[in-house]
């Protein structure tokens, strides 16, 4: 489903040169769920941005579903590829209603001069919102700006999966939420991914989450992949083992260790 071929991304600003991605080779089959961990500045977000097309790679090629998308702009890549970022406000249009946001999310291409919301669509929306358990189905005509961060992120997750993307990219999407919502959103995400079988890449700082979710794990450091676990290996690994491995390799940082102790 996803192939990264020697992807390199260098940021140059005058004399300063940062190698954010240093020759990444990655292959993800359809339905796989990859978790990504690593210290700050390891290149995790850059990796997702390059896959989504927000930033072009300096070198290398990216293929989604067999098609070379390296030169395809972000908005076109978004037809097959959905993203959710950390900021719970980023994924929704605040001055528009829940119904309108969902209507937008119900298609990733082929928009026409057709009426976007009719009675049938509205009842579909109610059905989709109900399982969230937040009462949003009763607030279809409320502007999204009135919702809390947790509600907006839940809506974003629903919106990301509504049009059945081929690829889902999650960039620490529960990190900015309060504990109750973290649990709720994490559960929601998991159920969507399992139900729809979407190929997923999830960045997280939470090592327990990284080990628990998905079938593969990679750890990034300074633009490269330094550790990769899959299937059985991943299931058997424990957080403690991972931390020891980091410390021994001198690549851990405080945040990573703090997460471990949660």
């Amino acid at each position, binding site marked *: 489903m996803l192939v990264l071929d020697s992807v390199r991304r260098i940021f140059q600003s005058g004399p300063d040169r940062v190698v954010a991605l240093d020759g990444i080779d990655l292959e993800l089959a359809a339905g796989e769920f990859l978790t990504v961990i690593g210290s700050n500045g390891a290149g995790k977000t850059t990796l997702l941005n390059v896959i989504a097309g927000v930033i072009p790679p300096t070198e290398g090629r990216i293929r989604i579903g067999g098609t070379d998308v390296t030169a395809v702009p972000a908005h076109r890549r978004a037809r097959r590829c959905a993203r959710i970022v950390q900021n719970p406000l980023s994924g929704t249009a605040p001055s528009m209603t829940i119904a309108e946001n969902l209507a*937008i999310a119900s298609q*990733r291409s082929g928009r026409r001069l057709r009426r976007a919301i009719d009675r049938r669509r509205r009842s579909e929306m109610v059905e989709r919102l109900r399982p969230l358990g937040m009462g949003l189905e009763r607030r279809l005509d409320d502007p999204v700006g009135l919702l809390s961060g947790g509600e907006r992120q839940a809506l974003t997750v629903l919106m990301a999966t509504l049009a059945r993307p081929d690829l889902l990219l999650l960039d620490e999407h529960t990190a900015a939420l309060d504990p109750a919502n973290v649990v709720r959103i994490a559960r929601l995400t998991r159920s969507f991914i399992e139900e729809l079988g979407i190929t997923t890449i999830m960045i997280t700082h939470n090592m327990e989450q990284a080990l628990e979710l998905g079938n593969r794990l990679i750890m990034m450091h300074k633009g490269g992949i330094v550790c990769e676990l899959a299937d059985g290996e991943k299931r058997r690994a424990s957080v403690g083992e991972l931390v020891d491995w980091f410390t021994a390799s001198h690549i851990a940082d405080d945040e990573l260790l703090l997460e471990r102790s949660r």
Partner: protein
Amino acid sequence: MTAILLHAAEQGLVYGIAALGVFITYRVLAFPDLTVDGSFVTGAAVASSLLVSSGLDPVSVMAIAFAAGAAAGLITGILHTQLGIKDLLAGVLTMIMLYSINLRIMGRPNISLLRVETITRAIGRAAPWLGDAAVLVFLAATAILVKLLLDLFFRTEIGLALRATGDNEGMITAHGVNPKTMKVAGLALSNGLVALSGGLVAHYSGFADVGMGLGTIVTGLAAVIIGGSLIRSRRIGWMTASVLVGSLIYRTAVMLALRYGYVVGFQASDLKLVTSLLVVAALVVPAIRGRVMRRVDTCSS
């Protein structure tokens, strides 16, 4: 007094169409577009020179005026999205270009429509039973039709995408929409409406003048802001209605200032000051009302 209010209503409606255009770029797309000072005259220029020189009927002339305005908006859109020129500057550049283009279209700085059948005269002739109210009825019907078509558009899939572009560009990109395309489309639609308004104003006034566009952005924004402060709803139908209401209020203020300003000692040269003060008053009244309401609430609790 009724004649003055009638004329104020006529002007509120006809300039209100331009205000709807400004609403699209300023409110919906969050794009401050100065092209309008030029495209307003483009509409007037096309609508008057075509009427005088070609044999076309007034309605077709208006359609072409709309298209000319849309083309102007397209230019600004291309300058911004393809050449990377900042929104404000792109609009200014097009506006400056239009000054020469408009003069070329008109062939002279003003054109009189005194002796041709303008759209307002054609309506008066076609519906003589309306009498003096013919022009008002026509302009009201046109303005309301434009408003309703806009409301319909903003409820379509493309319309929603356009609204989201101005609200959260990142979000709409992540759902497969090219924000550049939306901006160009919005600019074209907006300036088309502004040009249509310019054409109607020229026919209503009986003449076109190359300097009649100066201040279109200001009066358009005045209408949008006054209307927006009175009607707070974010539902698209209410927002477009508020723009027309704001335009009616603004034009009434101008007419009243012209007609009765002398009562409080204002002179001919104070017109701009008086209308500005009236706009401030229109903005302050809802704010005061809000404060009073809140005080009432706290008292009763």
